[in-house]
C-alpha cells in the first residue's frame, strides 16, 4: 500500500544531509596545467600528471585555492590557518593515480551556514542550513561503456576512458545534518541547492551547470519517528542533476523509507541512483566489503596556510549575498513578488540586471528576457544563458524601441536575428533592412489602398464601429511588411475615415 507524502510526515521526521560537488571554472586543472575546456576531443587535455604517469608530481592551482576560500567565506565558514591535502586511496579505472587528492581531517573551510527561504503554509519561512566543511579535491575521468545494450556499465564488454576531466578542480560542500524541516524537507533541500548555486554564481567561481555536471548534488535522507532523537539509517542518492530532481528525489526517498519502516523492514545504508524518468531511485551495487580509504597527508604537496591578509582581501572582495541583492533589486525596480519569482525561476535575473546596468529600463528589459528570449530558449531547449544574445544586445534593442527606430514587433525580429548569429542588433537591422515606416505619405497611400480593397469594413468605421479598425490596421501593417508603428497607423487610419479616438 503506497503511502502519501502527507501520511509520511505525520508519522516521521526527515533528517537531511547534502553534499554538493562543484567544478571550479579555473583555466587549468587542479594539480596540472592542462586546460579545463568542456567538450574537447578525448585525451587532448592530458599530461603526465593527470594521466598519473610514473614520476609525475602534482602542483596546486592558486586560483582554485582562492576560489575555495571565497566559497568558504560566502558560506560563513572559518578558514583554517593550516590545512593539508590528503590521499584518498581506492582503485577505480577513471581515477589514474588510484588515489584522489582530497582533504580529510584538515579541510580548508569549516563550520559555516546559509539561510534559505521557502514558501510555507504560513508564508515565507527561513531555515538555517549549517555547513560542516568545504574542501578541495579533483574530478575523475569519464568512461564510455561499450557493448551493453544501453551504454550502461552493466552488460558492457569493455570501457573506453577519456581523462580530459581527470584533475579538474572540485570543491565539496558538506552540510551538517539538517533536522526539523518536516514536510518542507524537499523544498528546503531544493532551496538550499538553489541558494548555493546563486552564491557560487555571484562569486564567479563555477559555471554551476547542473545539467553539464559542474554542480552535482548527493542527497542523504533518513527518517525517524516524530519525537525520536535517534538518527535513522540513511540512504545517499547520487546523480541528482537538476533542482527539481533534488526535490523529487528527497520526496521519493522519504516515501520509500516510510513504507519500509511501516512494514518493519530495515533501511539499508547504501548509495542509490536517481532516475530522471520515474523520479524514483535505484539501488547502486552495494559493495561486498566496505572500502578503507587509508587517508594520509599528501607528501607531494605542502600544507596550505593562508595568511590573514589574503583572507581579508578575499573577504573584502566578496559580492553582495544573492538573497540580499535580490531584495535590493526588487525594491529599486519596484517589481511585484510574482514577477520577481518569475525572473528567478527563468534564470534571467542576472541578465535583466546586466541589461539595466547598460541603460535599459527594468520593466522593458524584464519583458524581453522573460518573454521573447525565454520563449526562444524554450523552443530550442537550451539554457537561456547559452543563447548568443547578450544583456548589451537587449539594452541596445530597448534603446531602439524607445527612440522609435523599432517597434515591438520589429524588435522581435531583431532578437531572432541576434540569436541566429546575424550580429549585433544594429547589424541585424542593417542586414535585414528593418526600419520603421515613418513616412506619412507611404502610410497614407497604404491606408488608401487597404480601404479601397475592403470598402465594407472602411464603411463600418466611418459609421463609428471602431472595433473593425483592427482588421484594416493589420492589413496596413502587412502592406508595410510590419515596419510601421501600429499605433501611428491606427491614428492615421481613424483620421482618414473621419473618426477620432
Amino acid at each position: 500500500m503506497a503511502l502519501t507524502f502527507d501520511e509520511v510526515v505525520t508519522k516521521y521526521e526527515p533528517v537531511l544531509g547534502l553534499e554538493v560537488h562543484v567544478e571550479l571554472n579555473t583555466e587549468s586543472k587542479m594539480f596540472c596545467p592542462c586546460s579545463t575546456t568542456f567538450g574537447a576531443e578525448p585525451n587532448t587535455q592530458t599530461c603526465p600528471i593527470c594521466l598519473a604517469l610514473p614520476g609525475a608530481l602534482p602542483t596546486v592551482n592558486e586560483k582554485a585555492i582562492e576560489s575555495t576560500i571565497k566559497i568558504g567565506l560566502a558560506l560563513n565558514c572559518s578558514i583554517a590557518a593550516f590545512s593539508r591535502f590528503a590521499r584518498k586511496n581506492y582503485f577505480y579505472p577513471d581515477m589514474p593515480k588510484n588515489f584522489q587528492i582530497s582533504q580529510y581531517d584538515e579541510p580548508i573551510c569549516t563550520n559555516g551556514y546559509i539561510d534559505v527561504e521557502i514558501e510555507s503554509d504560513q508564508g515565507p519561512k527561513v531555515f538555517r542550513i549549517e555547513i560542516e566543511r568545504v574542501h578541495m579535491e579533483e574530478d575523475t575521468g569519464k568512461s564510455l561503456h561499450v557493448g551493453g545494450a544501453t551504454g550502461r556499465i552493466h552488460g558492457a564488454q569493455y570501457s573506453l576512458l577519456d581523462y580530459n576531466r581527470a584533475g579538474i578542480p572540485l570543491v565539496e560542500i558538506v552540510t551538517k545534518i539538517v533536522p526539523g524541516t518536516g514536510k518542507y524537507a524537499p523544498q528546503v533541500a531544493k532551496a538550499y541547492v538553489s541558494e548555493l548555486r546563486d552564491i557560487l554564481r555571484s562569486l564567479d567561481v563555477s559555471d554551476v551547470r547542473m545539467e553539464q555536471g559542474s554542480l552535482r548534488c548527493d542527497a542523504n535522507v533518513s527518517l525517524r519517528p516524530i519525537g525520536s532523537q535517534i538518527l535513522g539509517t540513511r540512504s545517499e542518492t547520487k546523480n541528482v542533476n537538476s533542482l527539481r530532481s533534488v526535490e523529487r528525489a528527497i520526496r521519493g526517498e522519504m516515501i520509500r523509507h516510510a513504507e519500509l519502516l511501516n512494514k518493519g523492514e530495515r533501511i539499508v545504508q547504501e548509495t542509490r541512483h536517481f532516475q530522471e524518468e520515474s523520479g524514483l531511485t535505484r539501488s547502486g551495487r552495494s559493495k561486498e566489503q566496505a572500502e578503507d580509504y587509508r587517508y594520509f597527508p599528501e607528501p607531494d604537496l605542502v600544507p596550505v596556510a593562508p595568511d590573514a591578509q589574503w583572507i581579508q582581501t578575499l573577504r573584502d572582495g566578496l559580492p553582495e549575498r544573492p538573497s540580499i541583492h535580490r531584495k535590493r533589486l526588487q525594491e529599486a525596480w519596484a517589481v511585484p513578488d510574482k514577477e520577481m519569482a518569475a525572473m528567478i525561476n527563468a534564470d534571467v535575473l542576472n541578465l535583466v540586471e546586466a541589461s539595466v546596468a547598460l541603460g535599459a529600463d527594468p520593466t522593458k528589459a524584464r519583458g524581453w528576457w522573460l518573454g521573447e528570449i525565454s520563449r526562444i530558449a524554450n523552443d530550442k531547449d537550451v539554457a537561456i544563458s547559452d543563447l548568443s544574445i547578450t544583456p548589451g544586445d537587449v539594452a541596445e534593442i530597448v534603446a531602439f524601441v524607445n527612440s522609435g527606430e523599432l517597434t515591438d514587433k520589429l524588435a522581435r525580429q531583431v532578437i531572432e536575428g541576434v540569436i541566429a548569429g546575424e550580429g549585433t542588433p544594429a547589424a541585424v537591422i542593417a542586414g535585414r533592412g528593418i526600419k520603421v515606416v515613418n513616412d506619412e505619405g507611404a502610410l497614407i497611400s497604404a491606408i488608401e489602398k487597404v480601404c479601397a480593397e475592403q470598402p465594407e469594413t472602411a464603411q463600418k468605421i466611418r459609421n463609428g464601429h471602431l472595433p473593425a479598425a483592427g482588421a484594416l490596421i493589420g492589413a496596413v501593417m502587412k502592406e508595410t511588411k510590419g515596419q510601421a508603428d501600429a499605433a501611428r497607423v491606427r491614428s492615421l487610419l481613424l483620421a482618414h475615415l473621419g473618426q477620432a479616438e
Partner: protein
Amino acid sequence: MSSLSRDDVANLARLARIEMSEEELVSLSHEFTVILDAVARVQEVAGQDVEPTSHPLPLRNVFRPDVVLPSLLTEEALSGAPAQEESRFRVPQILGEE
C-alpha cells in the same frame, strides 16, 4: 605481539588489488609476525606530546598560477596504452557502481 592472520593478509591484498596464492597468503602472514614486531617499536617513543612529521621541510603555500600549458599530444598520451580505441584508453569491463 602483533600478527596478521591469513585472512587479514587476504583482505589487505584485496585492498591493494594484488592476486595472491594460498601459499603466498600463508607465508606472508608468517613474515608479518616478525616484521610487525620489529616495526611496532615505534610505539615505544611516540608519545601524545610529539607532533607527527609528514613533510621533511617546513614549506608552506607552494602554488602554481592558473595558466594553461600545452598538454601531451593524444598519441603521446596513449603511447603506453595496452589497448586503445577512438583516442581513448580501452580497458576491460568495469564492475561496480555506475
